[in-house]
């Protein structure tokens, strides 16, 4: 190996107080690596076990989403938007629908709004379950992953029954939903929630989050202070783990979030443990929200409102819409020139923004904690690269 690589200079060595002690090595974690959650490449500089620098190199999953959708008609964009954050696709399609609905002032029927909220929270639950499994894998426990996938399967089956697809639904329409839920679906959903709350979740706690090794591995690792999290523009559980109670569902209510009661869990120190516990609590909050939504759900009502204009044209101007996805604030900025499709669309991906904190989290930690910190950011590469 040649000495003095381009990512670690002598000046940096002096600043880090590691001059002349050992020779750092540069190691490429990824793009093909078991725990980079997709095709992320981390150019990592290590001094023995200690991380000196972790530089994410993204773009391996780039699909040119923003350029491709320019000039597409708005309803066409919905299925392609699904592919952004493919673990929680509901939020993507809701975002596209919501931006058009907000711009045109389309009011939805109550039933459609409640069902949308139910689907979103179910998807959030599934997404957090996957996070739980992969984070367990990142810190070396394999069994929680299998447990999480077992429970996620039922959730996916529920979504499949209603939408016809497991992961990429194309289910939301501008003005509502494609179809109503089938008979007995709400009852099965309630069964699933009972199962999750009474059986699955206590197992998660017993197996992983109550484990001493888990706590030792997560506590005080990858600390992001409140100010740093705000300065980086982090959102979602990463921001809330640092103690900022910002949640789009509370700050800018949409759907029926204004009518249901739920808490926004926040952390204290901004370490891996806080971020993990925020997500664990959010799973229970999602269950709570879905239960209240089931109570709120009106028997009658159009799921796809008839008040949608035949031709969807946004008036000239700029529009910004936001949602709280499992990963944070996902935003869509639309520039319209009054045509049938957008002149420009900008997708604010929470994973992309949160990923920038990785270097800050990992510096000075052990290489195993770099992977753990990456796990608590919970990135989806489809969304990072778009």
């Amino acid at each position: 190996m040649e000495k003095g690589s381009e990512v670690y200079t002598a000046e940096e060595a002096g600043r880090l107080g590691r001059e002349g002690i050992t020779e750092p090595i540069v190691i490429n974690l990824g793009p093909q690596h078991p725990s980079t959650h997709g095709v992320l490449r981390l150019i990592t500089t290590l001094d023995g076990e200690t991380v000196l620098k972790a530089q994410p190199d993204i773009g391996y999953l780039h699909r040119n989403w923003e350029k491709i959708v320019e000039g597409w008609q708005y309803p066409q964009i919905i299925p392609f938007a699904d592919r952004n954050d493919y673990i929680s696709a509901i939020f993507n399609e809701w975002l596209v629908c919501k931006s058009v609905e907000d711009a045109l002032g389309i009011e939805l029927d109550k039933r459609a709004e409640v069902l949308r909220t139910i689907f979103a929270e179910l998807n959030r639950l599934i997404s957090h379950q996957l996070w739980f499994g992969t984070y367990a894998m990142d810190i070396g426990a394999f069994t929680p992953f299998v447990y999480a996938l077992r429970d996620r399967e039922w959730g996916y089956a529920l979504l499949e029954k209603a939408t016809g697809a497991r992961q990429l639904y194309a289910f939301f329409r501008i003005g509502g939903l494609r179809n109503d839920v089938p008979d007995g679906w709400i009852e099965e959903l309630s069964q699933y929630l009972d199962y999750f709350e009474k059986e699955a979740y206590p197992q998660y706690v017993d197996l992983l989050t109550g484990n001493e090794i888990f706590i030792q591995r997560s506590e005080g690792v990858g600390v992001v202070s409140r100010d740093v999290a705000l300065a980086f523009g982090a959102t979602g559980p990463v921001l809330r783990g640092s103690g900022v109670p910002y949640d789009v569902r509370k700050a800018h209510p949409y759907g029926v979030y204004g009518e249901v009661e739920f808490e926004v869990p926040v952390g204290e120190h901004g370490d891996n443990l806080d971020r993990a516990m925020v997500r664990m609590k959010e799973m229970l909050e999602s269950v709570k929200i879905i239960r209240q939504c089931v109570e709120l759900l009106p028997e009658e009502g159009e799921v796809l409102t008839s008040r949608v204009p035949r031709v969807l044209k946004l008036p000239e101007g700029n529009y910004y819409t936001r949602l709280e996805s499992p990963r944070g604030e996902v935003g869509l900025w639309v520039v319209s020139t009054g045509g049938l499709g957008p002149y420009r669309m900008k997708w604010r991906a929470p994973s992309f923004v949160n990923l920038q904190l990785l270097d800050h989290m990992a510096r000075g930690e052990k290489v195993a904690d770099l992977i753990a910190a990456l796990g608590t950011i919970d990135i989806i590469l489809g969304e990072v690269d778009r």
Partner: protein
Amino acid sequence: MLPLWLQWVLWGILKAVLVLLFVTVNAIILIWLERKVSGHIQNRIGPLRVGGPAGVLQSFADIIKLLAKEDFFPKRGDPWVWWLAPSVAFAPALMVFFVLPIGPHLVVQDMNVGLLFIVAITSFSVLSVFMAGWGSNDKYSLIGAMRAGAQLFSYELPMVLALVAVTLATGTLNISEIVARQQGMWLIFPQFLAFLVFYIGAIAELNRTPFDLGEAESELVAGYHTEYSGIRWAMFMLGEYTNLLTSSILVSLVFLGGWSGPLLPGWVWVLIKAYLLIFVAMWIRWTLPRVRIDQLMDLGWKFLLPLSLLNIALTGVYMAVMA
């Protein structure tokens, strides 16, 4: 009648073949068992639907697959070191078996210093890890080898000290003798601390979760054997499972009374106890997350080592008072 030297040679070869057979058969059983145990712990079926009755043929299918794989050699690796490492991993695991009694008089060489021999031979496993890590010319392998080396070295010490207390209590290094001294009471009861230290150390020596840092797949892909595939990789696995078996048999001999037990023949009791310990090791592996390297070192040097020293002191005081 054959000449004496020929008899001696043939007898030796027969013994070696028998030991090799025993080890290989057990390793195959262990691989199957690991699949089953992990499958049941993880709510999966495990190999039940494939591979014949209860999935017993799965292991044989694995062996055929591994033999048929491409023999890959990393570019710019160190060929000799690289080629030798799997053998060096397997050889000490096998050598330990020559002094390990499976039952009364069921031993290849009942050595007077059997315990010492085992301790000396098992230390060689560090060598293979280092050779694999260095010969692969791969940064993951190198980091894995460094980790595993530090880890094996740190846990060797408390393990040996735990055995020192055992030797103090029994007054012998001969394993058959140690078993004979436990007829009244198993050594696990008076020497519980030694058992604890030795068992934790053994799991760490075996590179199993929660101490599998040398092959931590979340950061190091596969650690020191990242570049190995096919039958060479299988040699590492074989060595690992043989080590699991030897440590478990050793623990059952030294702490759990060996072949003492009613009704069944002695060697059955040894295997029952050993397989119980193996099951516990698998249980731990499929339940716990992995510790971090600094926590691993802390546990070894700051907890297990003082504990084993304390145990020696307590044993010494007890022996002095009783004598």
